[in-house]
């Protein structure tokens, strides 16, 4: 009977601990989602100088060639410099907005999605994305466009051209339907570093698209990921807000646990006092 009680007690403790952890996770997720939603309106962005756009003819195979020592650890400044160098021109002052999203081991930041309506044959729309990866070893960054179920019709003709802006390499140019495999970009690092990869994504309709594609919708998700999570590292610099958030969550959780313990002790003490009084 005593064994059973001990078992029950242990189970209760386990349930309590897990429930607490779960609650913490849920709170953390909620905070992340709220922050994400908040930032969607602001559109976290970095400026992409116009001159970093290069034509596909100048493209080089960046996914295979290891960069030189100078650019192997490409931070923000390096990325922009390298990109500017690739174009060979710096006269153009017009700037395009690229949305910065980060790919840390625990810190995804959001991005501005496409919202193109009333598209006609010949239309094209371009958006710029910047994925920042904090990593400590060589790793591969993958990108894929996932068309949601029920939107396959327009995916037959809506084309995407995905260009890595630092090299001008077109990594994909075809219909959304045919993008069955992810495109990848190799990231090199010998030690902890942060690499920014700029993507130019151009969505377009050929002029030959017929009437059967009128009034059609397509909803797609753009996804970037790394498979080798061991190579990722926490970001060294940048926005500290997430760390603050985690600190706040941690502090609040500790405070919550302390309050619970104190309340429990008080209840137990009161019960003991009451029992003594009764005796």
């Amino acid at each position: 009977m005593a064994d059973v009680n001990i078992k029950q007690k242990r189970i209760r403790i386990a349930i309590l601990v897990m429930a607490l952890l779960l609650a913490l996770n849920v709170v953390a997720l909620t905070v992340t989602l709220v922050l994400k939603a908040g930032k969607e309106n602001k559109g976290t962005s970095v400026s992409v100088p116009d001159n970093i756009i290069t034509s596909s003819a100048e493209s080089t195979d960046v996914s295979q060639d290891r960069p030189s020592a100078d650019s192997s650890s490409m931070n923000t400044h390096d990325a922009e410099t390298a990109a500017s160098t690739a174009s060979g021109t710096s006269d153009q002052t017009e700037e395009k907005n690229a949305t910065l999203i980060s790919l840390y081991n625990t810190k995804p930041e959001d991005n501005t999605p496409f919202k193109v309506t009333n598209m006609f044959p010949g239309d094209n729309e371009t958006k710029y994305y910047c994925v920042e990866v904090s990593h400590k070893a060589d790793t591969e960054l993958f990108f894929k466009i996932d068309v949601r179920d029920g939107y396959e019709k327009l995916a037959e003709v809506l084309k995407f051209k995905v260009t890595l802006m630092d090299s001008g390499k077109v990594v994909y140019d075809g219909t959304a339907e045919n993008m069955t495999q992810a495109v990848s970009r190799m990231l090199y690092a010998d030690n902890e570093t942060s690499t920014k990869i700029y993507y130019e994504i151009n969505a377009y309709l050929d002029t030959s698209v017929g009437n059967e594609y009128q009034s059609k919708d397509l909803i797609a998700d753009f996804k970037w990921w790394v498979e080798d999570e061991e190579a990722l590292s926490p970001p060294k610099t940048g926005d500290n807000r997430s760390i603050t958030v985690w600190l706040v969550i941690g502090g609040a959780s500790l405070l919550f646990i302390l309050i619970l313990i104190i309340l429990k002790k008080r209840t137990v003490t009161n019960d003991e006092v009451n029992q003594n009084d009764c005796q």
Partner: protein
Amino acid sequence: MTVSKTQKKLTSGILTIIILAICLCITTFALIYSSVSVDNNLFRTGNIKINLNDGKPVINEHEFIFEPGMTVEKSFFIENQSSWDVYYKLYFDNVNGDLADVIEITVKNGDTELYKGTATTLSRDKVIAADDTLKLNEERKLTVSFHYPETYGNDTQDCTLTFDLCADAVQTKNNPDKLF
């Protein structure tokens, strides 16, 4: 009975732990999974839709008995219900009857002549886009006149002409050559 209750409690406790563990794994995975995404990218195509006189004929059977020299003018409308400005062309389809090459047809926008010819020459493959464009939601009143030339004699007596008046439209966007 007590043992059974205790077993039940233990079982439910273990089940709770398992459920909690699964939930914990899912939420932890959601927190640390190394991926970013830009969701809900929306692409929507426009549409081209034309209302030609509500589908009603511009001239009805037995409405007129044509004689040489006679001209009948009828009005109709064309409305752009598309999501963009359009080029349009009007043409005659399913043309039948001996008057197809006789009756002279003129389509006008006010005083501007858009098309002139016979039902045979104003077929889909022979007409080009009208010079003007139809703006978004614009409804335009047009007139079509049918003239029976005086030069035709008795050989065209008791002849008829039946046709469908049709319109094609295409968006002006990315279409400088007015290709249909």
